[in-house]
């Protein structure tokens, strides 16, 4: 199922590792990149991340898709650092940035959305003493996931209505009915939550 989520199915060690453990390793890696900011350390980090992608059998295309939206900005940063403090510094800054972006993306690519929800709920459990409610966080995430296709349907309905009225150029004639319908949908959703006992 590729309709929702960026998960790439597979059965590598990384796919089978629990999502919570992967998030923890990512956290350690993120802290490590702050200290590994010289070129040898950055190179090690990049090689490790590329190795992990190969291990998880995630292809080059998917790997580049994680960086592609950033290319214009990365180019700007590269030019800036090369100009101000030389190509080595540019490599160090960009290499550390790309390594961490790829590593973080790898956690998502190898973990199904449901496993990530469970990991977030489990991570919130120790925070209960600080006032967090892990079950409610889990409920909100699943509600949010449900609302994505729900709103996509509303967008289609509203734009069809707009076409029928021949007003397809107006942003206002699109957004106002969309948001009003969304608010009515929220009322209905709120009532169904009350009916299921999610109220206080």
């Amino acid at each position: 199922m590729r309709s929702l989520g960026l998960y790439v199915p597979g059965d590598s060690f990384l796919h089978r590792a629990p999502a919570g453990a992967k998030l923890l390793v990512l956290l350690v890696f993120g802290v490590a990149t702050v200290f590994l900011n010289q070129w040898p350390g950055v190179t090690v980090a990049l090689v490790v991340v590329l190795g992990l992608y190969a291990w998880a059998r995630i292809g080059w295309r998917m790997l580049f898709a994680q960086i592609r939206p950033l290319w214009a900005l990365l180019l700007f940063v590269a030019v800036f650092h090369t100009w101000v403090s030389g190509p080595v510094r540019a490599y160090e800054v960009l290499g550390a940035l790309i390594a961490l972006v790829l590593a973080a993306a790898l956690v998502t690519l190898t973990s199904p959305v449901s496993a990530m929800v469970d990991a977030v709920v489990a991570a919130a459990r120790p925070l209960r003493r600080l006032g967090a409610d892990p079950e409610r966080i889990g409920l909100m995430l699943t509600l949010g996931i449900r609302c994505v296709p729900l709103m996509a349907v509303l967008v289609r309905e509203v734009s069809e209505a707009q076409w029928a009225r021949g007003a397809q150029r107006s942003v206002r004639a699109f957004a106002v009915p969309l948001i009003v319908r969304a608010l009515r949908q929220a009322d209905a959703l709120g009532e169904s939550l009350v009916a299921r006992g999610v109220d206080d």
Partner: protein
Amino acid sequence: MTAQRSTSRDLALIAIFAGVMAALGLVPAIYLPLTPVPITAQSFGVMLTGAILGGRRAAASMTLFLGLVAIGLPLLAGGRGTIGVFAGPSVGFLLGWIVVAWLIGVLTARAGAPYRLPAGIGINLLGGVIVLYAFGIVGMLLRTQMTVPAAVLANAPYIPGDIVKAVLAAVIAKGVHTAYPGLLRVRRPARARA
């Protein structure tokens, strides 16, 4: 994220507006004459959510939306997602969304009903342009170690589009508050009805 408990209607609004943000990621970019930078709808959605839901719910809604992105839904404009975006140079903008939605929400709620366009535009410009870019630029400085002028230069092309979006968000918010009253408290002699 706050000690205050939400009602189930609040939960529904928070979730639905996370869905609205996702839907705005699907809206194709709008090109305006004289500006080379496409206008994507999502930063418009941040301002709109604040101007409609009020501070606490809007901030929760943005947090939920970013949470959905983090756990792997490709909801950012152009189908981007994953935790990777929070390690990238735009992290300041993303986390700024939460603060901006909260700020716009609090100020809009304080201005009260009926929603007034000039005040709404002012609030949106303050939150969605000035505060958001402050967050965005600080994030970029931390992640790319550029100087402040370079980071400002990298972001400057997007500012005119965001000014247009701030105005547009206020116009839409006025339309929504007119068609669906009751979200903002009427500023009249306090507590006429409980």
